[in-house]
Structure formats: C-alpha cells, structure tokens
C-alpha cells in the first residue's frame, strides 16, 4: 500500500495550537500543500497576524515574519518591494484584515501589490475570547454583542472581499469555505490560483475563507460547520468574485 495522504512538506512537525475542530488548521494545510506543489517553500516569506493564527509562524516550514495586529499587508509589501522575486503571503483573521487592517488591505489592493492575501472569516475575534468582529452575523451573540449583533446599532456584517473586488489592482478575489471536503478542494484551487497570480506578477490576490470557531461560537465542531453553512454562506457572496482575463488565462 502507498501513502496517499500525508503531512505536507510545507508544514513543520509542530502540532497546531488551535482549539479542537477549529478550521484554521485546515486552511493552513491547504496553503502548505500549495507551497509544496508550486515548489516555492524556499522562496516564500509568510506574514503572520496577531490573533489565533499568529502562531502559524511556527507551523509553516517557510520563513516567517510576525506583523503587528492589522499590519500584515504593509509588512508584506515592505518585504515584496525589497525582494520582488520572492513569494510573499499574508495570513489574517477577519478582525486583523477588515477592522484594524482595513486601510492597509484596501490600499494594497488599490496599488495592485503583487502579494497573496488569505483572510480567515470566522465572524468573531477568537484569540481575545469571542468578541464581535466586522463580520459577525446579525443576531450572533458574542462577548461584546451579548444581546446579539443588532444591525441598527452595530451595523450589518461587512463582506470584505466584495469591497476589495471593486479595486482595480485586485485581479483575483475569491470567497471560499472549508466546511466540507468538496469546498475544501475548491478552497485549495482558489488558494493555488492566488499564488499563481503572484508568480505571474499580475496584481493583488485575495482569498477569503469561511472558517469555524467552535469554542467562541459555543458549539461542537460538527455543529459549527452546519451553523456556518446556514448562517454565513447566505450572507457572504461565495465563489470567485473577480477574475481578470489575464488571471483567467493562467
């Protein structure tokens, strides 16, 4: 018998630090596999955020830089402008990119910065213990929306990839999910394409991945996947939101 599924070379052997059932780990596996398949582990510099995903600097086998909360895009741009022939990707939670990091992400896209950005949308701030994020769904209870998010008081959840897709420099924007094997496969394809966009130097690429947070949602890992399908997928436009011709031709 042959081993048909094993830990990617894009990962170190360090155990993930996430809660049981948290799909951050799945997303990181997909990225690691893409780095391995494109044979760019040694040329890649990852930029980690502040939040649960901040620990990813220990899980990937490529070089990593820890950015201040919200600043991963700017840090990544600094690296890419210094070393244009290296591959640079940022990995951020929804609060990191769409709250405190908004201006850096929007201008990275507007300038068409040739980096690959991964946004993990679990509709909550995980590391700090479950506060409301810009992506928190209406009615969703969090520690800072204890009565449920009220779209009148707190505003409606923000579909950040849609915002980015409107910008000229964003040449590839996709919104995917890792709630099922089928969607995990599609998510990997989108992530791979986003890295190929960078390799071809076409412009800014963003992949937003719907993800779960069993601990702060207060559900079992399996229930949280169902909750994601019923409550998040209807709110966030899924699929490839923007694909320019050059990207199509890749």
């Amino acid at each position, binding site marked *: 018998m042959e081993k048909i599924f094993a830990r990617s070379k894009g990962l*170190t052997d360090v155990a993930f630090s996430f809660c049981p059932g948290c799909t951050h780990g799945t997303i990181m596996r997909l990225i690691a596999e893409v780095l391995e398949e494109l044979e760019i*582990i*040694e*040329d*890649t*510099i990852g*930029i*980690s955020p502040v939040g649960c995903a*901040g620990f990813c*600097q*220990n899980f*990937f*086998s*490529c*070089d*990593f*830089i*820890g*950015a*201040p909360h919200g*600043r991963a895009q*700017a*840090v*990544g*741009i*600094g*690296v*890419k*402008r*210094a*070393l244009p022939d*290296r591959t640079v990707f940022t990995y951020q939670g929804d609060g990191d990119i769409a709250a405190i990091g908004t*201006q*850096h992400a*929007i*201008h990275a896209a507007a300038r068409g910065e040739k980096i690959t950005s991964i946004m993990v949308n679990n509709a909550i701030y995980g590391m700090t213990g479950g506060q409301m994020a810009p992506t928190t769904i209406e009615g969703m209870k969090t520690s800072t929306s204890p009565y449920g998010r009220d779209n009148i008081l707190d505003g409606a959840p923000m579909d950040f990839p849609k915002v980015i897709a409107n910008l000229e420099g964003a040449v590839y924007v996709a919104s995917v999910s890792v709630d099922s094997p089928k969607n995990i496969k599609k998510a990997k394809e989108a992530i791979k394409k986003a890295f190929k966009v960078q390799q071809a130097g076409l412009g800014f690429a963003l992949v937003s991945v719907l993800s779960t947070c069993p601990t702060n949602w207060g559900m079992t890992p399996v229930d949280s996947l169902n909750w994601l399908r019923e409550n998040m997928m209807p709110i966030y436009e899924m699929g490839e939101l923007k694909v320019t011709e050059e990207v199509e031709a890749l």
Partner: protein
Amino acid sequence: MEKVLMKGNEIIGEAAIRSGCKLFFGYPITPSTEVVEYLSKHLPPKGGTVLQAEDEIGAINMCYGAACTGSRVLTASSSPGVSLKQEGISYSAAVELPMVIVNVNRCGPGLGGLGPAQSDYFQSVKGGGHGDYRLIVLAPSTAQELYDFTMQGFDLADQYRNPVLILTDGFLGQTMEPVVLKERPEPPKVDRSWVVDGAKGREKRILASYSLTNEIGEDNNLRWEKKYKNIQEKEQQWEEFHTEDAEYLLVSYGTTGRICKSTVLNARKKGIKLGLIRPITLWPYPEKAFIPYKDKVKGIVTVELNTGQMIEDVKLAVECKMPVHLYRRQGGMLPNEHEILDYVEDIFSLTAVEEV
C-alpha cells in the same frame, strides 16, 4: 567631493541614496515632505523604490518588512506622523531591525504648527511607543550634520541592529546651506545570519516579537538591556565649545545648540566665562561630557524649543550638584543669541563686567 547648496530635507535624501539605501516608505507631512519628494525623483533612477503609503502606520510597517530582509530602509515624517509610527517603531526595536527614521520636529501637541521645535524630545529618547526599548537618536544642527548623521545613522543601525532616529526640526529642514557630499564610509561588517529572505539552503527563520512565556519575555528584555548598556558605553557623542575654563555652561542641541555658540562668543567678549556642551546623541545621552564640570561649574542653562524636557537629563547627568535652569521658546518661536545671554546674566546675577 562636490560642495552644493541644498535644502536640509533634501540633504537627508541625498545622504540616504549615497548610503546605499534602496527603499523609502513615507507619507507627506510638513515640514518633512521634501525628503519623500526628493527621493521620489532621485531614488528610482538608482534602482531604488519610493512608496507613498496610505498613512504613516502603513509606512513604518513597510519599513519593518523591508528591514527584516536586511535591506537599508528609510522613512521620514514630522511629529504627528511620528506619533502614528510609534507602534511600528516599538516592534522594530523588539525584533532588532536596522532602519533610519527621521523626525522633522514641528511644534505640538495636536495639529500644532509648522515652526521648528524640540517638543518630541521625550517621545524620541524615553520611548514614544510601548515597552522597554531605546532608539539611538542623533541631533544634527547644521546642513553638513544632516548629511553626516544620516550616513552615520545607517551604519549605527546595522552595527547595533537597532532603529536609529534622526531628530531634526522644521528650521533645519527648510534651510538651504552649502554641504559637502562626502563619499560613503566603508559600511561596518555586520552579522546577516538573522535576515528573512527565503529559507533556501538553510533552516527556516522567524522574525517576531511574541514571547510565549514570561521566562522568554524576561530573557528578551535582558538581551535588549545588555545591548543598550553597550551602546550607552560606546556611542555617546557631543561637542564642547569654550568649556575649558567655563564657569557657566549652556547645554543645547540642534538649531538652538548652534544659536548658543553666538551667545558664548558674545559672553566671552563681556568677560563672562560661558561655555557650551552640545549633545549630538540624545540617546545615549552624553553623561560623560559633564563629568569634568560637575565640581567646577557654578551653574547651567539648558536652551530648548519646548517647555523643559532635556533639562531633566542634564540634572541627572550633573546629579543636581549645581543649579540647572531652562531658557526656552516654544510654539515655533526661536530664541536669538542676545535674549539667551540676558537670561544667563539675569539668572546668575552676573553684573556686566567691563568689555574685554
């Protein structure tokens, strides 16, 4: 070596280019904008990159990323912009990144005005951002020093793997003076084994400042402290002017440090034994400069463009052994050499001795 007439802020840009700086990330703000303007014109033809970021927070974090790759990188701003950069500067100090940051001090707080000031002294030397860190701070007072200190800043940053702050002001930045465009000194041999540029043929590296446990946190702080002590021991710089037989001292840096020289000369004409200590590094503060005068000098006046900041470090340096008074203008005003001398004579009740 050519001698040219150049505006202060542009001199910083030219010095950076000649120091091998290839990357500049910035944002416009008076009175520092000529730095980004000059480099926007002159760096790209030399194969460099100038990026005007979305704001100063973006700019400093781009510097952080570029510095992680070991590239020479510069940013320049003025007071409010430098306030926005404090978090990024703290991170850069924690990760021990070489970079040169320019603050063309304008008067504040708040929006303030465009005039020259030294109101960011505390922010610069006592750590404007969070955490226990220090920046090497150089204070130029002439066009030539703007040029020389920018170059020196890049070498010190590499040598000690630490951000360096050039603290200048709106007056110096906007003034045109002749400057000799010296060739770049041999850069220091430095260890590059920490840079993050892709783990090709080597172990992977991480540059970050999160300390998982308190023990690691303490070790980090002790490591930084050791470096700062080493810098304090070796890098104190200052200029002395007519101090050999001085009975009274002026202490002043930057633009006011220059004005004080005229005050000293005028005082000497009146037979008043006045001297000047002009700090060049504001951190590490030049305490060594005061040792010979602690028991000799009767009094000190610090001349500053703020409501009294450096005076605290002078008192510490002389252990309050003699009276230390403050003469200052603020809000963008500059003192002239006469009003300083009037204050010295008044505060130390020096009746005018006969003209020498």
